[in-house]
């Protein structure tokens, strides 16, 4: 059962990163589009993510519930030492989710839309930025339960070059995922060209931010290179991501949306796999080396069993419905109002 629960946890996080990431990215793409084209992007985006957007942040909730039920130590350590970035991320999630609904369901379309839009766009950057900062902090080894000063325990745990670089890298990846996703949703050739251009820009930005992550890791003596090249799985995953990069640029020129989507998702998954495999099953790396791993922090067997069954039974209900939902709206035009 532990295996099942861990698989769900990893899947939940991966799907949140891919689907939620594309969702955040849509807001980022919107922000980096000239004002006169923004309303077109909004329409495309609404059609693309409207029906499934409620489902997207469910992946995060599932991951969190698995953590606090099955691996309470991980949940509490993160809650205590990453309190501040978690809060900022939450504010981002709230602001973004409500602004998205408000701008659509406000019966009167007037100046309030400007406010909703800017809240939506900026929180679309802040949320993945802090998501990345949190992820970066968890593996940076800067979390220090022995710290007795406020700044050391609660601020320097997450505010450092490495985590910020990972945060920026996350933002660019989200923008990239969204742009690639939107290529297939574009309704005319100009929009399509625009999204292809955006995908290229965000891809370049991601490569630059990725380099920043390496620099920061080098500066803070985080053995990132060793993690990535020290074992076969990470190395192969990283190579696969690099090879697919070349293929991706070639396909971008052709504008083949379906394969592109798959490839972009594949690439991001490979990057996540490369980085998490070498540390697995360690989840949080602690300053003094007493790392918190999935195995060491697991709850008792009865809890893990109950959780595993709940997840399996839940999926039997959820997956067919979710697949049918996505399938239906890929087939039909949205018809609301």
């Amino acid at each position, binding site marked *: 059962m532990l295996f099942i629960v861990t698989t769900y946890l990893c899947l939940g996080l991966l799907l949140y990163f891919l689907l939620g990431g594309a969702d955040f990215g849509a807001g980022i793409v919107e922000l980096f589009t000239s004002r006169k084209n923004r309303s077109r992007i909004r329409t495309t985006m609404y059609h693309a993510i409207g*029906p*499934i957007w*409620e*489902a997207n*942040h*469910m992946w*995060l*909730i*599932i991951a*969190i*519930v*698995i953590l*606090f*039920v099955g691996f*309470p*130590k991980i*949940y*509490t350590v*993160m*809650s*205590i030492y990453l*309190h501040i970035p*978690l*809060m900022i991320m*939450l*504010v981002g*999630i*709230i602001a973004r*989710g*409500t602004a*998205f*609904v*408000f701008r659509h*369901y*406000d*019966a*009167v379309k007037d100046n309030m839309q400007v406010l909703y839009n800017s809240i939506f766009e900026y929180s679309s950057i802040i949320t993945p930025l802090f998501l990345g900062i949190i992820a970066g902090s968890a593996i940076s080894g800067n979390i220090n339960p022995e710290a007795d000063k*406020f700044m050391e*325990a*609660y601020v320097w745990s997450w505010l450092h070059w490495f985590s910020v670089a990972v945060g920026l890298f996350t933002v660019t990846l989200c923008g990239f995922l969204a742009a690639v996703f939107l290529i297939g949703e574009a309704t005319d050739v100009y929009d399509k060209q625009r999204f292809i251009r955006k995908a290229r820009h965000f891809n370049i930005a991601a490569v630059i931010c990725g380099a920043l992550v390496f620099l920061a890791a080098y500066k803070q003596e985080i053995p990132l290179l060793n993690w990535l090249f020290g074992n076969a799985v990470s190395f192969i995953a990283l190579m696969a991501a690099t090879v697919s990069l070349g293929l991706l640029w070639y396909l971008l020129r052709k504008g083949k949306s379906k394969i592109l989507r798959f490839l972009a998702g594949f690439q991001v998954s490979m990057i996540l796999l490369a980085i998490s495999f070498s540390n697995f099953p360690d989840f949080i790396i602690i300053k003094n080396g007493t790392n918190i791993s999935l195995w060491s922090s697991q*709850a*008792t067997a*009865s*809890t893990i069993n*109950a*959780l595993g069954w*709940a*997840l399996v*039974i*839940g999926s039997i*209900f*959820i997956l067919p*419905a*979710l697949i049918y*939902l996505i399938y*239906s709206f890929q087939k*039909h035009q*949205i*018809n*609301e109002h």
Partner: protein
Amino acid sequence: MNDLLAARSQMALSLGFHIIYACIGMVMPFFMAVSHYAWLKTNNGIYKNLTKAWSKGVAIFFATGAVSGTMLSFELGLLWPRFMEHAGPIFGMPFSLEGTAFFIEAIALGFFLYGWDIFNRWFHWFTGVVVGISGLASGILVVAANSWMNSPSGFTFRNGQYLDIDPVKAMFNDAWFTQALHMTIAAFAATGFAVAGVHALMILRRRNIVFHQKAFTIAAIFGTLAALVQPLSGDISAKDVARRQPAKLAAMEAHFETEEAASLVIGGLPDEKNRKVDYAIKIPGLLSFLVHGNFKDEVKGLNDIPVQNHPPVLITHFAFQIMVGLGTFMMLISVIYFLVLWKKREMLFSRWLLTLFVLATPLGFIAIEAGWTVTEVGRQPWIIYGIMSTADAVTPMPGIAISFGFFAAIYLSLSVVVIYLLYRQIKMVPQLYDKPENITNKTI
């Protein structure tokens, strides 16, 4: 403000905010489904418009409820890490099932909101019903988790260790049924009265009368039915609390001394220092009757409970009085409404009756907030009743007061925006839903 008080205030604020959205989000789909059913059966376009208008309300409330719920799943850890470290594996079962229920609700809502004219009409209707049922299931599961804090079970507590964990037993603890029943009925009563009140106001203002009359009737029937049965579930709850948490019951009733033939204290100002209640109405023997079913038996007072385990009496007592008072008032309105419905149908939309409903618009939600205050404040000083104190559970991070202020500002502005949005939705009803054929019916 010390960190413990700030953390408690932030939790109270977040829950207080979430409860309203969650209640509306889980009850309104049923109103929507009834109206939708009426449309499918009668082909009367007004019902279709009403369904669509309500579904927009559901979407707004669902989204706000979803993000505030996401918030809470993090806040449990951010504010109470010591609690979650031990409690998570024990009372997590309902949360993991709630995740499923909530996911299904989100999927069904996607089908419902975006599925007009795409799917088979009855499949589309069914997805709306699924939104309601899964919403209700989520609500019940979350209340089951809360009830575990009042009635911890499914583990053995030995030398500070939580052993022999049985998550299923923890979920079906002694308090889950009474609490879930009381909360579910409360959600229907509060939402029914709130929605009916808004539509009553529109009828009084003579806007789209037929539209609002239909809406009013559906909401009022749900709300009044719930308000009529609520006192029964309240009675079950009170007996249960008296058995499990005598300190909470004593605080609710401001019952300071253990006595036989205990009197029921209505209103009044509890004086915790001198152990008495000033200016209260006392009905001899009634408390014994309500708790034990006869007028003689002994009811445990606060004097038999160690002082360090007393909940705050003033707040718990006041909150309880507000809840019971408002509940009784809503029950009376419901009796009147059913009398009118049964005997004098021509008075169903009379001015005085509608005015009564307009006045009652917020009452159900005030009663819900008061009721949760009773449950949560009445459990203090414990976070897990009899096992872990709230003070031991709070985060070691200082400066929670700042975060409290910050979240207060966020919730306040969100509430303002939601009210503003609903106001605009309602104001736009004539432009959005007035079809020529409806206007002719306007004169009643």
